[in-house]
């Protein structure tokens, strides 16, 4: 009884949160609509809250779901659409479309996890598929911002490394849970090598970090973790000594103002945007965020800081913290090692990616070209982030199934005792 009351209370609180989030976005889009007197703003004032409602309520009808995780995901996705609508309206519409597709993709991932069992068969298929996908940019890719990591198929551009994130996590979780070092390790090395060849250093850093931490989670060896971190630091140092573009990037990180007009322009503009926003921001629709060259992608966090202020930005960061906390909770509740590693891997991927890009924007670490999960513009990025949540939700739904089964067995046991 007590548990039911608690659950009811949590559910009511969750519903209240969803309505509060919907109201926030309704008023924000309405404000932008009134500013421009454009019907698109009014349309989004209705469709975005509707999408949040659907995203928060439809999936739980199909699978047992973690509602807090869903609410956080929906808030961050809607925030991305809001910032994009203010700065680049046409991109907001496509982001909105990908948001809808992402909810469906999340459902597919939940379904895949529920059917994957131990992941053995699935992962065997995914290894060649991952390698093929990662090779495509080298064969037919286009170079954007120095990295050759995009391909264009049937008029649609996408980043295969975003899709391989999901596939790699499933492969690593499946083989690490069964201690098949000589399968997952060469696979991870080849993936990293292909990313290095594409000069996609940010994604390579993520893959490396997540693979290392997942291995630590599976084997628990601090020595391996230490060696991995030392190896990563050594590789970074070698990269710095060997590649001029890495040295340039580090120099810009250390002092972007020294080359303000060229290499330092983006970081300097980002810092000016953050400083201009102050604690409370200049206000939605105000400021000059489009001065930052990558305001839609890598630097969308600086736009949030400028318009909404540092206090709001810290709240956004707290949402990612809550997301990591929920993901880790799901991983800890998993009954099977594969599922635990899968949920933890997805959580680490989202957490590290958020750290790497925000750290780059505020100049804590050198900037690497990754996106802010759920918020940055880009179909590939949004879909892969939603799929990562789908993996966590899939494990969460299995955990819920296990709990229900436990309750059923306990009930039957009590009945048998009568």
């Amino acid at each position, binding site marked *: 009884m007590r548990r039911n009351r608690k659950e009811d209370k949590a559910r009511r609180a969750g519903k209240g949160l969803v309505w509060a989030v919907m109201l926030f976005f309704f008023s924000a889009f309405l404000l932008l609509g009134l500013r421009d007197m454009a019907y698109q703003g009014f349309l989004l004032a209705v469709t975005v809250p509707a999408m949040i409602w659907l995203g928060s309520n439809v999936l739980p009808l199909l699978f047992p779901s973690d509602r807090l995780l869903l609410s956080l995901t929906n808030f961050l996705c809607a925030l991305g659409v809001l910032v994009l609508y203010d700065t680049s309206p046409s991109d907001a519409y496509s982001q909105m479309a990908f948001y809808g597709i992402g909810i469906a993709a999340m459902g597919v991932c939940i379904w895949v996890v529920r059917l994957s069992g131990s992941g053995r068969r699935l992962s065997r298929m995914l290894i060649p598929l991952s390698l093929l996908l990662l090779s495509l940019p080298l064969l037919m890719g286009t170079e954007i911002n120095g990295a050759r990591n995009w391909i264009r198929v049937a008029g649609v551009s996408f980043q295969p490394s975003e899709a391989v994130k999901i596939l790699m996590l499933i492969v690593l979780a499946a083989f690490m849970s069964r201690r098949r070092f000589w399968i997952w390790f060469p696979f991870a090395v080849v993936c990293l090598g292909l990313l290095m060849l594409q000069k996609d250093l940010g994604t390579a850093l993520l893959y490396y970090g997540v693979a290392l*931490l997942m291995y*630590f*989670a*599976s084997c*628990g060896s601090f020595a391996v973790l230490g060696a991995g971190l030392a190896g990563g630091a050594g590789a970074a140092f070698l990269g710095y000594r060997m590649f001029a573009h890495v040295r340039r990037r580090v120099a810009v990180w250390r002092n972007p*103002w020294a080359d*303000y007009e060229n290499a330092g322009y983006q970081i*300097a503009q980002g*810092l*000016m*945007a*953050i*400083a*201009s926003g*102050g604690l*409370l921001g*200049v206000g939605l629709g105000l*400021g*000059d965020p489009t*001065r930052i060259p990558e305001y839609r992608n890598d630097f969308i966090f600086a736009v949030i800081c*400028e318009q909404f202020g*540092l206090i709001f*930005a*810290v709240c956004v*960061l707290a949402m*990612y*913290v809550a997301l*990591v*906390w929920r*993901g*880790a909770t799901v*991983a*800890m509740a998993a*009954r099977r*090692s594969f599922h*635990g590693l899968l949920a*933890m891997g997805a*959580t*680490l991927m989202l*957490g*590290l990616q*958020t*750290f790497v890009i*925000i*750290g780059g924007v*505020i*100049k*804590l670490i050198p900037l690497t070209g990754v996106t802010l999960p759920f918020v940055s513009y880009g179909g590939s990025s949004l879909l892969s982030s939603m799929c990562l949540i789908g993996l966590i939700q899939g494990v969460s739904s299995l955990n819920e199934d296990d709990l229900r089964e436990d309750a059923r067995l306990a009930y039957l046991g009590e009945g048998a005792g009568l």
Partner: protein
Amino acid sequence: MKRQRIRYKLLALLVFALFGGLVVYGGYTYLTNGSRWFAYSKNSRVSSQKQSVIAGDILDRDGTVLATTDADGARVYQADEAARRAMVHLLGDTANHVANAVESFQSSYLYGFRATLWERIADLRSGEARRGDTVQLNVSAPLTTALSEALRQACDPEDPRGAAVVMNWQTGEILAAVSLPSFDPNDPQDLRGAGAPALNRAVQGVYSPGPALAPVILAALSENGESAGGTLGDMLGRVSAERLRAWAERFGFGDNFLFRDLVVLNSTYPAGTAPQELSGVRATPVHLCMTAAAVANGGLMMEPRLLLRVTGPGGAQRLSFTAAEYRWVMTPEEAARVCEGLRALTPAGLPDGVIGIAGPSGADSWFLGCMTADDMPLALCLVAEQEGDRDTALSAARQIFAWMAEREAAPAMDIAGK
């Protein structure tokens, strides 16, 4: 599985720690550098705000209007040309030729970026153009004009070059700071003159300090209770390179100066500098003034402060003067010994209670000293870029001390009444 769960928890904590690092670093860097990023001359947000906000007034410590905005929206400086020229490096100009002067570095106040939400709403309701905040400086306009004139008279009349700073050694208030050559903010043609007129040498000019390094040398010598007799050159022969460098660092050489009100270039003391070969040492006049001030203040170095108060258009006080300690450089006993050493080096012809040193360093002539009386706690650093004997800077120092002695209401004395 139990151990694996503990490792998941550890990994989650690791990600939380990374996020905590983002918040701590972001907060720290915003607090220490935010005003510098905001005030960068290329920040388009400030220039666009200038179109819609009437810039606030700038006053000196006695309430004299140094800069205001007329009915046509044009910036108006003092009517007296000599006063205008004397103040221009501190105040700046509308085109931001002078880097990090009040007009640009305090633009967040002057252009209303710090206005509260209620003030902005009230402005919207009134329908009137918004006004920026009034910024009152610690600087005394008459003293600044007199200092500029004294320095000019001591320099080559055809090509006067140099800088001077007067600060209150008890509170760190900057009472005057001048740089030559100067220019008239009302006449941009003036900027074409020789000697980089837009450069504020008081805070951005790095000089080889020569005799102005006396506080450091005397402190290094007095550490072991050695006597400070003889000339400065003799004393340098009795102090080791390591000890001298260590004391230079205690006095702030090598620090990254991140003062709230001023952008001051860092002073450098290269490693391996021999006491007899100090030409590689570089410092700004304001930093050297701080070293003398620390000695007079019993070893406590104060942060230089330029702002006395900032008031919103409706009378709301945004900032009022508070003295800030920079660091304890030495104990009061050590400071007393350095004072004695400095007294022995003080040239003749200065008013009673003034201690200091004068002399040449390469092509520059220096005076560094202070009035030790508690009711006239003033420190003066003066450099004239002109070869000659020590009297070049000394004559200007004599003139300005006489000017201050004539006026019993010295600017440093009436701070309590402000």
